[in-house]
């Protein structure tokens, strides 16, 4: 299937908001621009085949940079208006500067001959006519007595192309002829405007998501507030949901072997895995109260929106790459290969996904503390009861007792001799309060374990047997 068709169908069927669809790259209109440009070029004898041969010549020229003065038959320049173009890109919202593409040929001042051996007779004639039409040269040519090409001097007076990256190099003894084209300017102006539009859309979307996320964050904080005893059960459920969410690594890998941003396909798969997991483990059913279910739905919808943004960004990026490829294929002007920096696609989807995911973390997930952030580096269980050593590191009291019994005097994290003189005065009461409030079940379990282990310390392994409930 042709890409144009696939693109159109995707825009129609993926359920994107209408405002997004309107901002999408107008692939078919750009395609028409290319068709008009092909006609314009053919009118001066520049069929794709001819231009392709010329382009090859230019590429060879560029590759052989050592040979500075090789004749260069033509240049196609995408010059931007002077100005801090890269800054504008970095700030995203600033409008892109319009492109001013130019197709330039060089003719020998002395003979009026085109500086290319690869043109067929017909094209050569047409271009020479253009050169004559565009008037007598403004340049004066001084020929040195021992005239080889390198010593030819050439002074340009007017008609000097704008300085900057896109300026063609001055060439001795030749005149620059610009082929009058309009459809290419149209093409690039349209593309640039659409890219700006996509950037603006991204900024709007980001603000909108921010509002949604902030509101949901407040709601989750209310629903899980441990000061209300009735929330305790639901707090544990939300914690498990968010833990499953983080572990699913939907938009970014979180493992050693996968720590990059995911594309829309992979993120979608991961999202469905997450949704299945919380449904199949019964977490969704445990939410019970309608306000909890509503909050979860909002959370899922925010994630779906990030996914859609990712997908939308991807197909637009693809559309841009395809249309530039088509531009080159039909005109042989070599835009895609020669000027990648200027027509780089804005990091639409990835930026949005990254920014929004960061907000989901800080505004929503952070309301429900996870046990891993409060686990003891020794036993990897909840730090209950927490003892803060002089060096500032905190362990559970059980592990410190074990360390002291084993004459392990140094802190496992910093190796300062702070374990030896720790005692129950060093209990971190504020942290203990916090843990009791947010992890009531885990605290109970750990307390039981500690009591059992203390019993073993006192009475030996037998104690363990006595307590076993068979």
């Amino acid at each position, binding site marked *: 299937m042709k890409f144009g068709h696939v693109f159109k169908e995707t825009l129609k069927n993926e359920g994107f908001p209408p405002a997004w669809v309107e901002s999408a790259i107008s692939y078919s209109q750009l395609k028409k621009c290319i068709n008009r440009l092909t006609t314009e070029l053919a009118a001066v004898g520049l069929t794709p085949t001819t231009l392709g041969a010329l382009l090859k010549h230019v590429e060879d020229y560029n590759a052989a940079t050592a040979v500075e003065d090789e004749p260069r038959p033509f240049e196609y320049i995408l010059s931007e208006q002077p100005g801090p173009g890269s800054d504008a890109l970095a700030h995203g919202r600033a409008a892109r500067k319009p492109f001013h593409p130019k197709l330039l040929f060089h003719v020998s001042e002395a003979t009026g001959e085109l500086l290319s051996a690869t043109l067929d007779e017909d094209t050569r004639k047409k271009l020479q006519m253009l050169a004559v039409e565009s008037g007598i040269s403004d340049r004066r040519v001084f020929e040195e007595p021992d005239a080889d090409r390198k010593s030819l001097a050439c002074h340009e007076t007017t008609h000097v192309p704008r300085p900057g990256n896109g300026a063609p190099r001055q060439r001795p003894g030749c005149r620059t002829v610009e082929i009058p084209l309009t459809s290419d300017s149209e093409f690039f102006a349209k593309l640039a405007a659409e890219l700006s539009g996509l950037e603006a859309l991204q900024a709007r979307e980001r603000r909108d998501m921010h509002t949604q996320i902030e509101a949901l964050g407040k709601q989750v904080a209310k629903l899980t507030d441990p000061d209300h005893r009735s929330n305790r059960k639901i707090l544990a459920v939300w914690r498990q949901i968010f833990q499953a969410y983080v572990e699913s690594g939907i938009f970014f890998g*979180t*493992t*050693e*072997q996968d720590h990059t941003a995911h594309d829309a396909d992979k993120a979608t798969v991961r999202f469905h895995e997450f949704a299945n997991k919380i449904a199949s483990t019964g977490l969704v059913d445990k939410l019970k109260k309608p306000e909890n279910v509503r909050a979860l739905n909002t959370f899922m919808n925010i994630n779906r929106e990030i996914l859609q943004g990712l997908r939308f960004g991807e197909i637009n990026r693809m559309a841009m790459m395809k249309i530039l490829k088509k531009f080159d294929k039909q005109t042989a002007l070599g835009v895609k290969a020669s000027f990648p920096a200027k027509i780089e696609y804005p990091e639409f989807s990835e930026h949005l996904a990254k920014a929004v995911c960061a907000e989901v973390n800080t505004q929503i997930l952070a309301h429900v503390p996870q046990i891993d952030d409060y686990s003891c*580096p*020794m*036993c*990897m*269980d909840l730090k209950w009861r927490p003892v803060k050593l002089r060096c500032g590191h905190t362990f559970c009291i059980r*592990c410190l007792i*074990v*360390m002291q019994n*084993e004459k*392990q005097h*140094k802190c*496992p*994290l910093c*190796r300062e001799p702070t374990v030896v003189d720790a005692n129950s005065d060093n209990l971190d009461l504020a942290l203990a309060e916090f843990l009791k409030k947010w992890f009531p079940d885990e605290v109970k379990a750990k307390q039981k374990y500690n009591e059992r282990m203390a019993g073993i310390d006192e009475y030996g*392994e037998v104690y*363990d047997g006595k307590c076993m409930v068979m």
Partner: protein
Amino acid sequence: MSLPKRIIKETERLMADPVPGISAVPHEDNLRYFDVTIEGPSQSPYEKGIFQLELFLPDDYPMTPPKIRFLTKIYHPNIDRLGRICLDVLKSNWSPALQIRTILLSIQALLGAPNPDDPLANDVAQDWKKDEKGAIETARQWTQQYAK
């Protein structure tokens, strides 16, 4: 005695989020005993070698370090004929905050940076100091021959 939560957690993470180039799988009938493989680091004489090790967590782990040795024959100044490893974090510099994965990473790093000034295998270390090029070549040959 049941398996401490720490060992369960470390094992889970080793399975779910393995370190590239390293694997550690516990025995079904003894969860304190692991079969370990380490890939030789690239740009070292051990490159492309796959080394088998055994790792055992003693009863008082993590108060004492894991016991670990190479099963694959290896030519290295800090590893002796019995596969024992001379690595400070496995002895005097052990800390209970270190884990199986951090230890295995240290061993992988040791393969990339042999230290003949702190030898365990004295004969190898002497060769290494006398003729480093020759020693590296021997290490490469042993890797090709044994670490498959």
